[in-house]
């Protein structure tokens, strides 16, 4: 049985958005499919800080811990997976508790984070969508893979710097 589920209104969607839904602590989070470079069993990478695949190196992190420092994914779980992600510029590997599903969703089914959320979470999440009668948070791929010591490029602070473009939809960054 295929992992991919079509969750779109029409039989032949024109502009679908592939999302990998994962479980991370108490949350269900989806990672844009365009940013996924590989999937590994976490138990096979437990004692590695970095993972190298096809000549590219991915620094490993815990996704639950990145979002909430008080939480971590379950260690040594047979269902745990490590997801290799890239936006074309930056790469990172994230441990998650388990893979739920790979779905195709219509962009019109994605709702933005309500404006009441005013903090850094606006940068962390690109929106929400319904899956199996529950809400799933879509993670912002650029935030997910950009090193934490890289400040997002903004016109007001980076006048004169040409923004970098990438296949992953990266707006722009510059190292500090």
């Amino acid at each position, binding site marked *: 049985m295929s992992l991919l589920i079509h969750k779109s209104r029409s039989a032949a969607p024109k502009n679908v958005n592939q999302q990998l839904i994962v479980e991370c602590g108490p949350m269900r989070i989806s990672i844009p499919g365009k940013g996924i470079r590989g999937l590994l069993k976490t138990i096979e990478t437990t004692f590695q800080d970095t993972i190298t695949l096809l000549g590219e190196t991915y620094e490993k992190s815990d996704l639950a811990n990145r979002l909430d420092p008080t939480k971590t994914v379950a260690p040594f779980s047979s269902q745990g997976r490590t997801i290799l992600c890239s936006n074309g510029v930056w790469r990172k590997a994230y441990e998650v508790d388990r893979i739920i599903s790979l779905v195709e969703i219509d962009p019109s089914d994605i709702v933005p984070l*309500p404006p*009441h959320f*005013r*903090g850094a979470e606006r940068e*962390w999440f690109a929106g929400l969508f*319904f899956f199996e009668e529950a*809400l799933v*948070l879509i993670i912002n791929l650029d935030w997910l893979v950009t090193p934490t010591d890289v400040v997002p490029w903004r016109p007001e602070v980076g006048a004169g710097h040409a923004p970098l473009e990438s296949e992953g939809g990266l707006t722009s960054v510059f190292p500090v």
Partner: protein
Amino acid sequence: MLQSQTSGKKTVVSKQWVTVFSVGGRRFAAGMEEVSGIVQWPSVVPVPSQTPFVNAVAWRGKEVLPIFDLARQFHLIIESDPPLCLLAKHEDGIMAVRIDSDMPILQLVDRASIQLSDGADPVVVGKCTIDDQPIDFLCLSKLGKPLA
């Protein structure tokens, strides 16, 4: 604005409907016009967040509602089960607030009985006397706003 007669002398008394609800056993009041409804507590998903007291969303049908954790702001614990959901008319849109299972009441009070504070706190805007007891009067449209 209602009119009342007192001691044969005509006076104009301004009245206001307030919603009185409880969170963790503590009562609060808010203007009726700031309450969109009271519903059963809906399904909720946590949202990692740095916005104070806003760290989950609920949904009703296809409507996504951010949740304001009023109990946490006032260091209260809701033990009544199942809780109710007060739909607050926040300035950014409807917000869900978890309240005790005791059904809120509507009460008509004199505006004069609402003691407004200095305005430094945009949420707790004053005290309202209900059943001879002062309770915090909240401005639900400003939930989450920091002190001035």
